[in-house]
């Protein structure tokens, strides 16, 4: 088959240093350098901050930034394995998940102190093996009023350390989802899901080259929509690669497999698969069902055994809240939590047992995605200046760590990989320009 090669122009975006916070960064750099030096002749050292107190004028938000900057620096150390146990900051104290302390070699105790015009960081290193404090160090820097205000501001964008926009390019409109898979030759294939086709691209350095496309034929009933929504799922099975494609305009999702040199529909299922997971050692597809022609999921989640792609018996369901956005955090194949934004734009988290945790009082913009069991990205509840919030969900909590400004309206967010970096794809509708354009962005952590 002759390949149709079509290149998409990718715009690699440079994110400059966050300026205005040099003193705070210097404080962190000194602390990190001290820790590097302290651990330099040790290998595979498991370290975590287990206490962080604040006696300075800085806010909880600023503490969180400083903590995140320090952890990000330490993560770059080759001989240090840093566990991020922070659950939350409140009332000048960090709340840490101490259930995993037994696995650690060293524990770090941090304290922020205000010393006249300077801000100090006290650092204590405790060795669990020796059961004693092995180092105490104090660093201080003069933080200007402006820098303090900047740190205290609700902005987590430390681009060099956290999530930043690594890629941006234009796409045709109505793109609903992006998924990728590593081919047998080690090359990454990217599947772009549009209402009438799936276009598959291959990554060539910083470009995407169109490899082939799969035309999607939908049959009645079809519910025309104002806003296309859909989920694509790629499943490497014993019988080869299988994909599922569901949406809000057809009540039946397609299950397709690669047979005899072409993609063929092998069955239809009446919900939209979002994730593949293991329950009681059995593989399952899990997903929801859109209200036909509308932009939200109904109030049920469906689990379908998926050992045989052609078999769709044994489906069972769980009741939840109707959801503008829905995703599942999965760790080592196991369901960790269900994340959703309800029709009042409030975020909800359900445990794997479908018990609801306390909903967030803040409204969100109704797009979200979970990256494994580690990160959650959620869009903002505003049209004029959209942004993406990134949360650390590793310890079952929901801790904001970064935000990224978006020019336009986020249409979808999905977890993915670009150039071996894990992160999030976003589809963004930019209406202000002439002509309007649909832009795809990839947000990831530069340091992996």
């Amino acid at each position, binding site marked *: 088959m002759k390949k149709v090669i079509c290149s998409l122009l990718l715009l690699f975006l440079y994110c400059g240093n966050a300026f205005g916070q040099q003193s705070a960064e210097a404080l962190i750099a000194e602390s990190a350098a001290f820790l590097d030096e302290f651990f330099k002749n040790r290998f595979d050292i498991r370290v975590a901050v287990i206490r962080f107190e604040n006696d300075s004028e800085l806010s909880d938000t600023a503490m969180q930034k400083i903590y995140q900057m320090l952890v990000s620096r330490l993560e770059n150390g080759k001989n240090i394995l840093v566990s991020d146990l922070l659950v939350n900051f409140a009332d000048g104290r960090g709340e840490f998940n101490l259930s995993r302390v037994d696995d650690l070699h060293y524990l770090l105790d941090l304290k922020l102190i205000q010393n006249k015009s300077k801000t100090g960081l006290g650092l204590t290193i405790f060795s669990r093996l020796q059961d004693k404090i092995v180092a105490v160090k104090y660093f201080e820097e003069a933080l200007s009023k402006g820098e303090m205000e900047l740190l205290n501001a609700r902005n987590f964008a430390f681009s060099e350390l956290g999530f930043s926009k690594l890629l941006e390019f234009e796409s045709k409109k109505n793109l609903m989802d992006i998924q990728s898979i590593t081919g047998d030759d080690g090359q990454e294939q990217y599947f772009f899901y549009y209402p009438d086709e799936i276009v598959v691209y291959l990554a060539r350095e910083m470009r995407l080259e169109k490899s082939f496309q799969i035309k999607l034929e939908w049959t009645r009933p*079809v519910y025309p929509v104002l*806003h296309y929504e859909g989920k694509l799922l790629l499943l490497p099975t014993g019988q080869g690669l299988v994909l599922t494609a569901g949406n809000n305009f057809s009540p039946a999702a397609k299950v397709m497999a690669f047979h005899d040199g072409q993609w063929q529909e092998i069955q239809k299922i009446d919900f939209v698969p979002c994730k593949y997971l293991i329950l009681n050692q059995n593989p399952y597809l899990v997903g929801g069902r859109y209200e036909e022609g509308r932009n939200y999921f109904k109030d049920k989640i469906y689990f379908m055994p998926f050992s045989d792609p052609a078999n769709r018996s044994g489906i069972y369901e769980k009741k939840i809240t109707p959801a503008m956005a829905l995703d599942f955090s999965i760790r080592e194949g196991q369901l960790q939590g269900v994340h959703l934004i309800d029709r009042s734009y409030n975020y909800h988290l359900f445990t794997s047992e479908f018990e609801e945790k306390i909903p967030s009082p803040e409204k969100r913009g109704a797009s979200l995605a979970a990256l494994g069991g580690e990160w959650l990205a959620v869009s903002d509840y*505003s049209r004029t200046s959209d942004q993406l919030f990134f949360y650390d969900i590793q310890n079952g909590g929901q801790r904001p760590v970064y935000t990224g400004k978006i020019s336009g309206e986020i249409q979808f967010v999905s977890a993915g990989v670009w150039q071996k970096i894990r992160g999030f794809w976003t589809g963004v509708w930019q209406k202000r320009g002439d002509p309007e354009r649909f832009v795809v962005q990839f947000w990831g952590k530069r340091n992996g």
Partner: protein
Amino acid sequence: MAKGKWLLLPLALTLIFAIKPYYGGEINIRLNEPASFNLNTANYSNLIFYSLIYENFFYLKKDGEIFSNVFQEYRYIAASKTLNLILKDNLSFSDGKPLTSKNIQVSLKIFMGLDLFAASKLNKTVKNIRASDNQVGIELLADTPDILSLLTAPELVVLAENEQSFSGLFYPQEWEKNHHLMLKANPFYAGGRSYLDKIRITFAENPLPDIFLSNPNQFKDNFREFDSGIYQNIYLCFLQGDIGQNTKIALFTLLKRFNEATGFKYRELHTLTADEESPVSIRIKTLSPQKTASILKSSDIKLYILASLSNLEKDLTAFLKSSNFKIETLFIDDSQFMAFLNSAAIQYVLIDKIFQKKVPAEEKISRILKESSFNQFNARTLRMLSELDEVKFSNSQELLMEQIARISEAIINDGFIFPLFQKNYSLYISKEWPALEIDYYGRPLLQKTGKNND
């Protein structure tokens, strides 16, 4: 307190615009009660109502752009003088039955049979209509590259074979006669389901609905006001040939004085359509109060008034009573009027016509000739109509204006219809529905109207 308000303002501004639109909710519109669900766009109220349940082939935006929700592609091929319309895939009517090229073909033929200028012009342009698979080919008699503009008429809609199937944004769900009509969102609407779930159409004056028509410059606090693009003309008609010219002028003068006495609620009208668009302005000289009194004092006049002008009843009756003339006012329902005309010797009648500003003047003149000449419709009227039709196709604006002027002068000079007043209407839309807009023809566009999320 004041500081708190300042802090709340930016917060409120960010909360108003949720990224994902909310689906659900209901809007209330006040319209006249329709006679049935069969398409009839004779007046503005109907034009709005039927636009909700029937889908147009093409829409004309205010900026002149033409678009369609039904066709994925439309292309005119000059070589074969054919306009090809390609239907979108998998379209259905409100009951889920397939919407096919055959439905398009039949709908187009039904439109071409209507007594409308746009329909008759299309009729004279089209040679043949073919339907196959998802395509309709409209073969023309002559090369007509602007054929698409003829297909933007609001009366050209997609009709189903079954009367219970609808192609529009909504479909009728419940009808309580004389009270309200409930429309439900069509899940198969070709342009994509509306954000709203329901529309409640009320026929009563109160309470104030979300959308309604009324006099300009009112309700400023809670409603946004739009130029509805329509006006109401009021005419005095003399249906019998034996009425003296003096009596006609005297009654005309009296009604002009009524407008003056009630604070000029209406604009003066000096032609059959609108003064702005008419090539002629006809001044009928009014009489002095003394002369009017001397002519009318011995008259015994029964003035019939269409029920659509019932808002005049209170003021006009009081005015005529105070003038001490023997003039009786009788309000008569529009639908009964024609039947009444044949059984009673009606001499004087006050009628109204509602027109859209966007409709060409020649179409309005034609409507007046057909609908308001009553028992004086004769061979001469028919000739004027056919002459107007001919001139319309001459594509000469000069000739067209000449013909409109000739007809206007003839009708008024013949003395069977005197233009009296004109009233403009505004369309009011509640501020609770900020995204609602209206189209070229003054119809509210409800597809992307959503409930305020907060």
